[in-house]
């Protein structure tokens, strides 16, 4: 699953989310559900701007992980995890907990898929080294099975 697919799943699962964007911590857009590219970039920039401004609101250095800005025109959600940010726009009065849950799930699914892909990458080399012993084992089992077949009629008679 790539980032675009993760966002597509997100908007499909959560009907309240009108549009969402996934961005790196530096503001570069990874994927967006907005038909116009600049809308996605603008939302990503705003989410990062909000997170940066909100970071300064607490003096004890606690890490800000998510925020919701409520206006009469709708809500803006932003969730930050592992250097990435997913931001979404909803209509007025969304189910806050559900939207946050869906955004976090989107980020985690993407991370999981990337971890799987990273593990899978060195696998071809490992398979190549493992191929020879497997062939050997397969050959030995074939021999054993042949013996059994040969022995089978003896046992029966």
């Amino acid at each position, binding site marked *: 699953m790539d980032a675009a697919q993760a966002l597509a799943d997100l908007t499909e699962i959560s009907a309240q989310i009108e549009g969402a964007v996934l961005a790196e911590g530096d503001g570069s857009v990874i994927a967006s559900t907005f038909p116009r590219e600049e809308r996605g970039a603008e939302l990503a920039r705003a989410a990062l701007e909000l997170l940066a401004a909100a970071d300064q609101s607490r003096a004890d250095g606690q890490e800000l992980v998510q925020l919701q800005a*409520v206006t009469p025109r709708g809500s803006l959600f932003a969730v930050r995890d592992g250097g990435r940010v997913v931001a979404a726009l909803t209509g007025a009065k969304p189910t806050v907990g559900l939207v946050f849950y869906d955004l976090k799930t989107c980020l985690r699914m993407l991370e999981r898929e990337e971890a799987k892909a990273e593990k899978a990458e060195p696998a071809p080399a490992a398979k190549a080294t493992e191929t020879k012993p497997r062939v050997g084992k397969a050959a030995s089992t074939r021999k054993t099975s042949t013996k059994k077949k040969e022995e089978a009629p003896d046992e029966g008679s």
Partner: protein
Amino acid sequence: MRARSVVTALGVAAGAAAAAAYWLRHTGAPREHVDLYFADGSMVSFTPGSFEGDKLLPIARRVLAAARG
């Protein structure tokens, strides 16, 4: 008798005002605010008029206005 009807009318008016206030609060446009959630599980809410609210809400307003066209 007259005093009793005045008290009744006042009671009805007060009840209607309370019902209207409840209805407006629960069905009207949501009040602007920004909720911040931190890694330790704590949450802080800022409303317009506070320093953080006045700093954060214009950004959200701008994006939502642009998104709504």
